[in-house]
């Protein structure tokens, strides 16, 4: 009573076209899995029980002579062993066939996946599915399989900022589990086109597969292009907004000169225009930073002096908060001065924004272990614990929709993190709701070395 589910591996998903039309039970291997095994076991059990219950009785009916019956007991035993051996043989055979079928089906499933799948061992690539071959623009699997060095030469993996990844680097990448949604890498296809690929890797956990990792490659070029377009749009929109703002401000200044009596009102116009220009500039900076992955101009400067300048600007703009600066003398760092100033400004702006009842804001500039560190501490609202994890995400605003929503575009922390990371520094914070937040960032210090 063999069912089609146990048919030979030939009827796999890849040969759907050759199947008999509707009416026939379709070959579904997973249906066969739970039902086939017990059926044989049941047959075996029923046969065994019947044997125990009736074999002696049957023998005594067939052979009335007790002496001959005793002798035939041995033959009966042998007969039983023979029958059960056949059943066991059938059981094992079916099980094996199912394993073979299962392996083939898995292979077919991986082969049919829309994402590229590759299996790596320590030396190189040992398996790749059809989607992987297509993704890389190769004509057949053989072009991809082989040593990692060869793969690196052919497909030139790079980080999104253009830094090449060499073979040991790639090996390191692939041997580590990517638990947070994979990493993005740029690959050059065989036709010369660059694609952005999200790669997630995991070691294969099986007894005889030590050192094997499986990686899933997903082409995310399209969403990257969309993101780049959005950034370009933001940059253009911001740029277009700046021009009329500048004209409004200039006319306000002109009228203020001509009619000094209206100076207070016109000062408000100018202040609000400045505020809007600041927002627009922020948008422009954020999108431009995304569009230009490299570094801005680098110079050596005194970080403490820069922080102190930004503090002066803030003091001039926002009364109600006591801003204090602590720290030793000059702290020399190297980098994009304007962008570092923006980071400091963002952190101070947030500190002021989320301390609505005023109060002290303490800024520290310290130096130690080859690092300069800036800390900005406020005694304001703090960040709810359940939102702390996300605050560096772009557009995320921890206080959005609450009574404590004091505005902002949700760009400054994302931008700050990006800027600090590009300088080789770190940014982090501690925050207790109701008590305030302290944000820190570091930059490699440049006390020695050529000026």
């Amino acid at each position: 009573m063999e069912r089609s589910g146990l048919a030979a591996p030939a009827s796999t998903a890849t040969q759907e076209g050759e199947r008999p039309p509707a009416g026939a039970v379709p070959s579904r291997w997973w249906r066969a899995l739970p039902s086939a095994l017990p059926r044989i076991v049941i047959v075996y059990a029923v046969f065994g029980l019947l044997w125990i219950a009736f074999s002696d009785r049957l023998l005594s009916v067939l052979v009335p002579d007790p002496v001959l019956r005793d002798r035939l007991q041995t033959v009966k035993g042998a007969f039983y062993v023979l029958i059960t051996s056949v059943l066991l043989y059938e059981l094992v055979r079916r099980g094996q066939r199912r394993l073979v079928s299962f392996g083939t089906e898995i292979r077919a499933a991986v082969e049919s996946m829309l994402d590229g799948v590759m299996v790596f061992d320590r030396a190189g690539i040992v398996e790749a599915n059809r989607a992987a071959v297509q993704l890389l623009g190769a004509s057949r699997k053989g072009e991809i399989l082989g040593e990692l060095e060869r793969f690196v030469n052919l497909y030139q993996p790079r980080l999104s900022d253009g830094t090449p990844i060499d073979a040991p680097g790639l090996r390191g990448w692939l041997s580590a589990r990517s638990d947070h949604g994979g990493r993005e890498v740029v690959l050059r296809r065989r036709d010369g086109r660059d694609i952005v690929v999200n790669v997630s890797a995991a070691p294969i956990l099986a007894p005889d597969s030590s050192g094997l990792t499986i990686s899933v490659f997903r082409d995310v070029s399209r969403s990257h292009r969309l993101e780049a377009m959005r950034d370009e749009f933001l940059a253009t929109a911001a740029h277009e907004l700046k021009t009329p703002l500048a004209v409004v401000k200039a006319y306000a200044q002109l009228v203020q000169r001509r009619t000094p009596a209206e100076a207070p009102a016109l000062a408000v116009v100018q202040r609000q225009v400045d505020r809007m220009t600041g927002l627009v500039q922020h948008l422009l900076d954020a999108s431009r930073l995304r569009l230009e992955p490299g570094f801005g101009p680098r110079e050596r400067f005194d970080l403490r002096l820069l922080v102190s300048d930004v503090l002066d600007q803030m003091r001039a703009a926002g009364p109600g908060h006591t801003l204090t600066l602590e720290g030793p003398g000059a702290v020399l760092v190297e980098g994009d001065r304007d962008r570092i100033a923006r980071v400091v400004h963002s952190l101070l702006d947030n500190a002021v924004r989320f301390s609505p009842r005023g109060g002290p804001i303490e800024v520290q500039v310290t130096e130690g272990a080859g690092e300069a560190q800036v800390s900005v501490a406020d005694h304001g609202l703090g960040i709810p614990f359940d939102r702390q994890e996300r605050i560096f995400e772009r557009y995320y605003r921890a206080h959005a929709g609450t009574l404590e929503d004091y505005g902002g575009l949700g760009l400054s922390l994302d931008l700050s993190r990006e800027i600090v990371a590009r300088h080789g520094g770190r940014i982090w914070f501690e925050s207790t709701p109701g008590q305030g937040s302290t944000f820190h960032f570091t930059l490699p210090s440049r006390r020695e070395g050529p000026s």
Partner: protein
Amino acid sequence: MSASVLVVEDDLDLLGLLEMLLQDAGHLVRTARDGAQALERVSEEMPALILLDMRMPVMNGWEFAREFRARHGRACPIVVVTAAENARLRAAEIEAEGFLAKPFDLDDVLRMVARFVPQPSGARA
């Protein structure tokens, strides 16, 4: 040489603003809306200073500057007035004597003009 300032700017509002501002400060102001007009104005009468926008129709600032240098050399200083991101770069490209980044502050404009054009007597305070 006249003490006039030639303002070359295609945005009428900005042109009007600079004209009023400089007139208020007592300067003699002439205007042009593109590079071609500016060349005409220059050939009529050489100004003491040219405030030059870069992005203009007909003939842009860069083309005007090249043409002006070819015809008149350094007969008159040029101050580039253009968007902040590339003002310095643009000024260097045409070897301008100075640059003002848009958006500009009115005091900065007056200060920059005063560097090249002597403040006329009888200027309004």
